[in-house]
């Protein structure tokens, strides 16, 4: 089976992760998961991309595990527990004993200079509940590449954690193996909700020398909330470490489109809303770029499943379509999901993906 599809999973907390799980169910039913060459994730999309790429090989097992995790939520309070200083010391010692010294080394581990923040805690929860000490190279599915994107607030560059290599265009390639949990947490640190994750890595510069840099990692969505930029056709290997040139792109977009009208009066509210606006703008331009790539023949085609799509714009909706209004109110955090919310969001994802696939798939990619 030739892998010719690029899959992009957008940001948007657990709502996005659940939506993407539904989309992946449809892709599984369509038998397209084996055709995916690269999965690109942002924030909540990174979480689901990682759960799939580093999870059990069998789809049903992955589905069960992802369902359990999203339903129970990423409980940060528990994480606080895990990050009492004594616990941190214990963890470090344990890791060192396990021979994975490099993974939790002075530089790639928790910053000692700053007290562990809630994003560090998220990484710890992810380690504890999902990924253990798996590193980015440990992809379950042979032939699949993974790219999880975060943003470095210090340089405003994208930092990409990949199954083949990690790094950013300014500093070069990170030499240390990266924990999947770290990458997901960094990618998911939505600025308005979670603080940035501070990490120091050794970068191998394109020129050859190595140097340590500290990066302040925050939600990859600040840069590109759909995760599409890494799939852009014709990227030059001189300017980026990730060139895939997939002829067909499937984009799962858990954004909501038009913002509900509300007047934010207080500082946190305004901040939150301005971030949301930035995200929405970035998302709109990413979607139009997808159309441009297809129109200019740079890619053979794409399929876009968009959570916030107006229901009446679907040409042939299923009779039992979960309406947009049923999922629109769900927030973009990582709290435990009620069964009803989880089912409506996953079902809408599955329905939209199943409905759009036959419309966009060309014979070569069926």
């Amino acid at each position, binding site marked *: 089976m030739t892998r010719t599809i690029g899959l992009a999973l957008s940001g948007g907390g657990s709502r996005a992760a659940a939506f993407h799980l539904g989309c992946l169910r449809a892709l599984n039913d*369509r038998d397209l998961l084996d055709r995916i060459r690269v999965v690109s994730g942002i924030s909540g999309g990174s979480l689901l991309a990682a759960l799939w790429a580093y999870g059990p090989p069998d789809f049903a097992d992955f589905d069960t595990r992802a369902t359990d995790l999203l339903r129970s939520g990423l409980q940060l309070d528990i994480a606080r527990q895990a990050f009492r200083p004594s616990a941190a010391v214990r963890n470090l010692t344990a890791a060192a004993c396990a021979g994975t010294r490099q993974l939790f080394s002075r530089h790639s581990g928790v910053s000692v200079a700053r007290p562990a923040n809630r994003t560090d805690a998220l990484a710890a929860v992810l380690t504890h509940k999902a990924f253990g000490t798996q590193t980015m190279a440990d992809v379950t599915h042979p032939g699949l590449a993974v790219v999880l994107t975060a943003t470095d607030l210090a340089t405003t560059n994208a930092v990409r954690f990949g199954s083949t290599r990690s790094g950013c265009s300014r500093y070069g390639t990170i030499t240390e193996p990266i924990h999947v949990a770290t990458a997901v947490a960094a990618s998911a640190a939505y600025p308005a909700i979670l603080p940035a994750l501070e990490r120091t890595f050794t970068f191998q510069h394109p020129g050859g020398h190595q140097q340590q840099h500290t990066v302040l990692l925050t939600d990859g969505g600040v840069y590109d909330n759909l995760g599409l930029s890494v799939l852009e056709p014709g990227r030059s290997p001189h300017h980026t470490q990730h060139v895939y040139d997939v002829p067909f792109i499937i984009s799962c977009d858990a954004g909501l489109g038009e913002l509900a009208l509300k007047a934010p009066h207080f500082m946190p509210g305004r901040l939150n809303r301005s971030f949301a606006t930035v995200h929405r703008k970035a998302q709109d331009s990413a979607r139009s770029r997808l159309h441009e790539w*297809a129109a200019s023949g740079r890619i053979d085609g794409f399929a876009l499943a968009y959570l916030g799509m107006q229901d009446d714009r679907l040409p042939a909706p299923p009779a*039992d379509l979960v309406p947009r209004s049923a999922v629109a109110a769900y927030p973009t955090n990582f709290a435990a999901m009620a069964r009803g919310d989880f089912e409506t969001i996953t079902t809408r994802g599955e329905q939209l993906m199943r409905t759009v696939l036959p419309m966009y798939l060309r014979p070569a990619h*069926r």
Partner: protein
Amino acid sequence: MKDSTTPELTEGQQLALDQLHRIAQASQGSMAATHVTASTGRPGYVEARISVGCANLPRTQGALRLRSVEAVTLLIPPNFPFAAPSVRTRHTRFAGAPHVNWGRHLCLYRSTATEWDPADGMYGFVNRLLDWFEAGAAGELDRPGEPLHPPNALTDHTAGLLVIRRDAPVARPDGPWLGAAVLHQVGDTRSDVVGWLAVEDPWPATLEQLRQTAALPAGARAFLAPAVVTTKHLTFEYPLTARDLVEALARDHITSRLLLGLTGFVADHNRTLLHLDGDAQDEDDEDTPAAPVHLLLGTPSRGIAGDGPRQTHLVAWHLPDFADQIGRLAVGTAFSGRPYLAELGDEVIQFGTEWLDRLPTRWMRIYEARPEVTVRRDQATPAAWLRGKRILVLGAGALGAPVADMCARAGAAHLTVADQALVHPGILARQPYTDADIGHFKASVLADRLNRIDPHHTRVEALVGDITTRLSELDLHPFDLIWDCTANRIVRAHLERARRTDIAPWPHLATLMIGHHATRGLAALSAHGATGGGADVLRRTALAAHTDTTHTFDDLIEDFFPTKPRTELFQPEPGCSDATFTGSAADVTALAGQLVTGVLYALADPADRPTMATLIVRMPASPTSTQPAGPRWLTWPNDTLVTDKATGYDVRITPAALAEMRAEARRGARVRGSRVETGGTLLGVVDDATGVIFVDEATGPPPDSLLTETYFRHGLDGVGAHLGARREATGNISRFLGMWHTHPHTAAQPSATDRAAMTSLTLPLDDAPSRALVLIAGGPESVWHKWLATGDGPDLYAHLATRTASAAAEPPSPQLPARLGPVTWWPGGYATRPHGPVPFPRKARP
């Protein structure tokens, strides 16, 4: 610069000399111009001697041996710079080197038309000359891969023309090749070399045998011409007299005695051949030769590439009729084998040799058509695919006539053009016919004309009459490609049905169409082995155009696949012609060319060949209007074929429809367990004319469906809305067709319940048609699992059911095996949980 004589200079020659002077001044002594005179050999030309310093050129072993200063003579034409000068040496030291003709002439340009730039004038010429010396010194004059320049023979246009069609013989190292060329006399002055006979071979005894050996048609005029091929490249200077030529040939042991003997031997044989079936020859004929005397001379000097073996270069010397006589006389005496004639023979030879000495040489024009030294201008183009193929062109009109022309020129071996129409005045505006053709059958006129393109290779036949009836008389399998240029729905439907019912696979079929204003063209290709013919490919083109989300094909839909029939029709001659399109010869020829090239590209690479494909081309528009999009291909893999046993119809299930059924079955296995049946609606159409049932799309079970391990009941929710939406989206091409359901782990055969349901045919529609396709996907466990896992399979059952029981009759209740105990009922749609163990849910029918 010192002039010995003062020639009359034209303005151009003055320019040339000025330029030469400036070059000499700027060259700091490495080039000097010494002497300017009027040319004695060529009136109006000016000769300029120049010397070129070659002392500093790097030398290599085996290269041209250059002196430190090389003197050459430039020959400047009166119309310089609109004709290039030429250059020769005053010595023959370079004779025999590549790009040196007839001992003295240096060949600087392969084609002055493309390589000589008048604007560069003498500067360009001297540069070229210096390059030549540099390459000569380095031994690189004859780079591998560069075509060698053949020795130039100055030709005499009145001497006649020879077209060389057959590869020439090569002399063995131990002696020249002697024999005859078989000439096909095409016209008064032109003959074609169509074969070679060595003296040691048996020669045909009659003209008929001669024609057979050369594959000439009956009645073709043919004769023999003496021919010799030398063992060595002739390095002599261009022989102005026959004496020079004969002397040069003698160095290769080809004596005048031999030449006379061969000429006489061939002349004798010509008389035998030509007078056997002709009138009784009387004595006066003795002086008249039976055929003109052309002496062909071959030298091993012509190569396509560097160091490979030299091909024979041919020249032909036209001899006076007296050569016939003297030759025969020589044969009758010197070569008779009778000792008492030997003395007389010697005298004849002596006389003949002296006669030859006095003759001027009259070189004939030679046109090469030998495969060994010529390269087809269309080689490595898509059209090369057509060479040697058998082609059928249906329609000899605006598209068919140019398409047939293109096939004939590309060298198809056999071409059949079919049309029933007559040439009438109106079509001359764009179809390649003439006033004289009016009233004649297009197919016959076209075939006659195309037969003249390459009568040696391409045979063109006309098929006049109604294509649908004539085609059934024709065995189509020997053809390699059929072009349907009729733009006729009846022909298309006829072909589709004939192709479907044929046991043997058909040749490639390309269906060509142009739009109402000849601004767009379509080529629908159904390659050998494709499940669909032209009508099928056009139908899926229409579907693809209608459902394309980017609206790239909106113009195409309007032009070719409108949802409502066009009201404005173009009738150029009211009352007496069919409606047609508007378009010029330029439009239709350009579209035909693009479509042919596209289709041939698709056929050229068997590994990459699509099974079904459509090429869309659009003509350019004016510089100020929005430019239409360029060529676009749409391709489709084969459908899955099932035969409906009752009607014999083809059921063609698109990969998209099967993929949707499989996705639904995989979803079922994931959510409901591997044994619960599922199903849904089929969209497509039944075409009774061609006997094809097109299954375009499938959908999953409506939410109010009921799914169990032994029974599937198709629900109603959303079906009408979905069908309406798809009908709208596909321009009414894809409609309600029937229903599908699965038999996981069991045979794809209708159960008793299914059979009963097929007679009552309860459909999820208000205005239900009286017949519908029932499709069952199933198979034993291994087959079923393989389908779900890999996409191979499943077993399929298809039946076009017709309602026989009254529509009002209650559909039969499913018979549920009691032994299974409580049955789990699942809803359709995207439900993830079953209804729960209830006896039998109430039917949700309105």
